[in-house]
């Protein structure tokens, strides 16, 4: 498959839609958690206001060129993930650049932004950013285990690593979804998702209470604007990925939004129910049930 310049505007459109969905969810979810906690919570459109505010702030400081580049890396990673993800099944317009890569690309591109961000924050010299990164990395090494196993199981099941082809293989009703055809892999994958969505019990990485400052504080204004852009895109990319490989993908935007929202709610719900783990606890947890499930998943293929 060759590169077609017309892909560019369509991909940008898809990206924008994903961004909007992300912005919406980022307003909606805090609202829900607040309500669960018997609080009123923010307005749903609050993220948009914040967004505008961030880009309007006049003062800006930098600690060095890596500090400057950190957010760029971050956002590039997030956007890249969306750009290589087929959003809508069967649609040439919203299949983006999925032909240039597969699940493996997606998996490793995830780290592109993380790494850049970590480095940028690192240059600020703030110890807490380094602590946060250390925690995140430690946790992700084990959270990836079930994810990788689930992916391998699915890829082996469908005889392909290509996300588009996996989606294609699941068409024709819910009975063809991986969720049904390979429930163990799906369960494994969903447990892995918990580890990367920065919700309780796995959010000690950010630890909003204990570490009230850190990257988002050192990064302010425009930098923060770039980062919040990413926070709307990056989780959505992940969610869409899960949707594509486990839940049959989406044939139109409505389904995408619905499924995306449902998947997004899974870690949120778990997060409000369960208390937070320390990093070493979460590592041990991932090495128990999710690991066993994952091994079962590949063993069953």
């Amino acid at each position, binding site marked *: 498959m060759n590169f077609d310049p017309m892909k560019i505007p369509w991909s940008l459109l898809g990206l924008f839609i994903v961004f909007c969905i992300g912005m919406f969810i980022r307003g909606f979810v805090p609202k829900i958690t607040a309500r669960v906690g018997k609080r009123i919570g923010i307005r749903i459109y609050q993220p948009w206001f914040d967004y505008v505010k961030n880009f309007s702030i006049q003062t800006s400081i930098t600690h060095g060129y890596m500090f400057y580049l950190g957010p760029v890396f971050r956002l590039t990673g997030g956007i890249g993930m969306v*750009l290589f993800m087929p959003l809508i099944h069967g649609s040439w317009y919203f299949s983006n650049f999925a032909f240039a890569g597969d699940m493996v690309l997606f998996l490793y591109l995830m780290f592109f932004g993380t790494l850049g961000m970590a480095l940028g924050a690192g240059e600020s010299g703030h110890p807490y950013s380094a602590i946060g990164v250390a925690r995140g990395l430690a946790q992700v090494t084990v959270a990836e285990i079930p994810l990788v196993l689930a992916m391998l199981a699915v890829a082996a099941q469908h005889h392909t690593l290509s996300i588009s082809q996996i989606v294609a293989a699941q068409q024709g009703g819910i009975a063809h979804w991986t969720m049904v055809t390979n429930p163990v892999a799906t369960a494994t994958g969903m447990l892995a998702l918990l580890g990367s969505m920065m919700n309780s019990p796995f959010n000690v990485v950010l630890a909003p209470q204990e570490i009230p400052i850190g990257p988002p504080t050192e990064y302010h204004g425009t930098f923060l604007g770039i980062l919040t852009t990413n926070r709307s895109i990056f989780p959505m990319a992940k969610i869409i990925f899960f949707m594509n490989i486990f839940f049959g993908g989406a044939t139109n935007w409505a389904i995408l939004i619905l499924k995306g929202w449902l998947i997004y709610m899974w870690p949120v719900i778990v997060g409000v129910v369960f208390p937070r783990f320390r990093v070493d606890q979460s590592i041990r947890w991932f090495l128990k049930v999710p690991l066993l499930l994952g091994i079962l998943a590949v063993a069953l293929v």
Partner: protein
Amino acid sequence: MINPILIIAIALGTAFSLGLLKKLGRELSFAITLIALAAMAFISAQWLSAFLTYNMLGPVVTTAGGRAPFVIVLQMGHMEALFTLLINVMGVMGAFYLHDRLTENGNGAMAVLLAGIMGLNGIILTGDIFNLFVFLEIASIATAGLVLLVTDFKSLTAGFKYMLASGLISGLFLLGIIFLYNTTGTLNIRELLIAVPGTIKAGSVASFLVMMAILLEMKPFPANGWGIDLYSGAPAGVSALIASASATAAYFVLIKLLPLGGTVAYKIAAAVGITTFVASNLVALSQRSATKLLGYSSIGQMGLVVGIYGLNYHLGSKAFLIIFSLLGTHYLAKAGLFWLSGIVQSTEIDKWSALRKSPVLFVLFGIFVFALMGFPPFPSFFGKWELIMGLVASKLYWWAGAILLGTMFEGIYLFRWFSRALKLDNQELAKPRSTIYTFVPPLVFAILLFPAGYYTSTYTGGIGIMGFAPLLFIMLIGFLDFLPAYIKNILSIAGVAAYSWYLWPHVQGNTFKIVFAGIFMGGALLALFAGFYRRGKHLGFYPTTLLMFLGLGILVDASNLMELFYGWELMTIGSYFLLIRGERSLPHGYSYLLFSLGGSLAMMFGFGLAHASAGTIELSALNHIHVLPALAYSLMLVGFMTKTASLGFHIWLPGAHGEAVADIHFMASAVLLKAGVFGIILVLSGMGNSEPYARNILLVLGWIGALTALIGNIGAAFQESAKYLLAWSSIGQLGYIVFGLATMTHLGWLAAYGYTITHFLYKGILFLIIGGIAFRVGTADMYKMGGLIKRMPFSFLAVLISIITLAGIPPLVGFTGKWIFYNMIVSEHMFYQGLVVIISGIVAFLYLFRLIHVIFLGQLKDKNRRVKEVYPWLLIPAYAMLIGVMVLSMFPNTLLGPLGRMLSTAFPKGALHWDGYTASTAYGTFNMPIIMAVIGSTFAVVFLWLLLANRRAVKVKQFNIFYSGEAPSRPELTHFGYNFFAHYKKAVGFMAVPLVTRFWDQVSEGLHALAGYGRAIYTGNAQSYLFHIVGFVVAIYLITMGGLS
């Protein structure tokens, strides 16, 4: 031709006349003694040269004008000429060395020496068994006399024990002789040998006694306590004589008389010899006295040649070549070591570090030790090779195994000694005193080892002139060591370039060889270029570096197994000296050498099986071995895996590499480890994966690779030192490669090759830069750095790109490797091993982030505020490799295309399909230029956006951070770097428990305990030694002859 009997006449005439010459002064007497010995040597030499020039039979010289067998005859043949030459040369050198002692003790002492050497000549020349007994007695009594050149209690007891023991032994000998005469009616050895089958019945006790006596003269285990005490108690120069001249003569007696005992004698000699070799080397393990070690080693070596003689019928025409090469090496090296022990004047091996104060002597020490251990280019290398080939070809596996085991033991203590001498502090030790008399003999013998090696190789074949010629260049560099480093650097680069020019036509057209030749030679050039950053002389660096690269070159160039092994061993020596240069490298360099040695021995056995199977040592012998194939391939793999530092054999690496400086670290990690990969590829190509045993081996190998990757990466995450971190990381990376190869699939091998090359590049960058930083900052501990991005931006950029590559993050080339792995894992259903490999890849993020963050980011320390950027000499090669990384990232097909084509011949199935820049397998696809373009343009757009929106960004000071309203002032307090992954350690620290290290420690302890038990028999009491001798005779008598009466 000069009558050989004049050897005896000259010696005796001189000895007797010395009494009259007392008045003329001792110096003159000494000169006369030397002249006499030289004349004796000359006679032997001219006979030997005659034998070598004309293929003639040696004369039988009768005495007394009578005819054989009724008069005593002397025989001068090839062997006799050679052996007497050895003895007489040793006589000259030994006397020269003993100058001070001899002149101090007077003409009597010189006469004793002359008589002793005469006796040894007589032993060799005589054709009469009783005459032989007489000469033996002369030699032994003279030996006891020479021991007394220094009369302290030690030499007194040593001499006394020796006299008692040899008295007892020669009594047995005499008893045997007289009964032999009684049954055969002759004393002429030739007649006796003819008479043996006819007259002497099987199980003749007389011949048994003769045989026991000659075996006991070789100091067999355990009846050899007197021998060990003699070696350690005698003055150094005398021990040298005993070890070289006496032992050589005694060995000749064995050659001459063993046939008297019939076939059983050979069996006994083989068993006794090899047992002695293994046991005395084992016992020596717990020994700390240099002279005792030398004693054990001498006894062991002689045991080995005795054993080989016992087995010589199995070794065919090569038997004597093997014997001569081993005996010759022992002769030269052991004499040299004993001589050195006299110069050092301390028996404590740890005190030998004083020898470093005389670098030339130390070099000699090294030459002797490595020659003894059978490293190239010394004769014993060829001898040991032929020995193992021969034994294995004759299916004498247990014998070969025992010999290798004994060699390993010997290596343990010799290398411990050498390493400690090389590294231990010698500040407070006095410089060893050497005079012209004590200096020349070891020098001559060390130099002789080289032509001896070359000469031996002309008989074994296998190694061409290019195995030796470059060594001359390296020696030249060694002689020029007094020059400043940059001059030697230029010369070395020229040398490597010349060698590469020579190598190119040999590898052209062979992708496999091009890849490795490129890594080895390219690595050499880059490393040497980086070497320009050094000031001063950098003593000893260039010869050893070049030696290592020469070894690697020969490895690639090898057309047969022997060349391969030759290159491998050269590389081992060179790399050992490089790795042990670090400040605290002593234990690590030592364990590196031991693992290498063990690996080499295993490999040699494996090659032996290959040779036995194919009947040739061409590289094709590795294909489809059918003699014990599982063992053969496993041993070879184990051998090569000691260099790739795979799990179980990895414990040497972190320390050895972690203590090395920048350019050495680069060579050791980025280049050297690939030699193991080269070997594994060769072995696996030969093995294939069709046989059931092959599949089992591959399964194990795959798990080793995967677990190595995991353990290596987890280990790296917990290091505080950047260099140790990189070292552990190398272990992990090599684990991927081994895993890839073990899959025996197209994709697996593609990935392995890809990793081999890219690891060279990105790791090369990291080693050079991190090493350079450590050099600038003065420590490799990361938490002591921090914030260096401000001072070293170029370094940061290079490190950033290499860690992105290493981590496999798109769009750089490292991703290609990961992608291939995933495809392979899914298509081959290798989920479990694959999972471990993938997880270790993710674990790599831990240490990579730590590496770059703790060094470059965070807070800049006060003392580093003025630190300079890394030397351009290091940056330039690093950036050169960076360009390589970028090119490969953009166009991975330039690399993977040719590799794929090469692999398709071996693995036609599952190849990577290329469509333009799109690579695809049955499962996945990727198009690197598009990925690069998408990510690149996104990055550019976002960056521009940020620039636009953030024009007014102001650069702020270091401490301008939000810190609970406080202004931090001490960077140490806000730099998070120490014990970075504490939580991770808490959770998975059990993976980093050094179980393997503990295992090897316990092996070592066990061996030492065993050695301790063995040593308990050597009480130092002369009477116990007599017990051992009588017991030895009686025991062997009962075992072998008891049932025959």
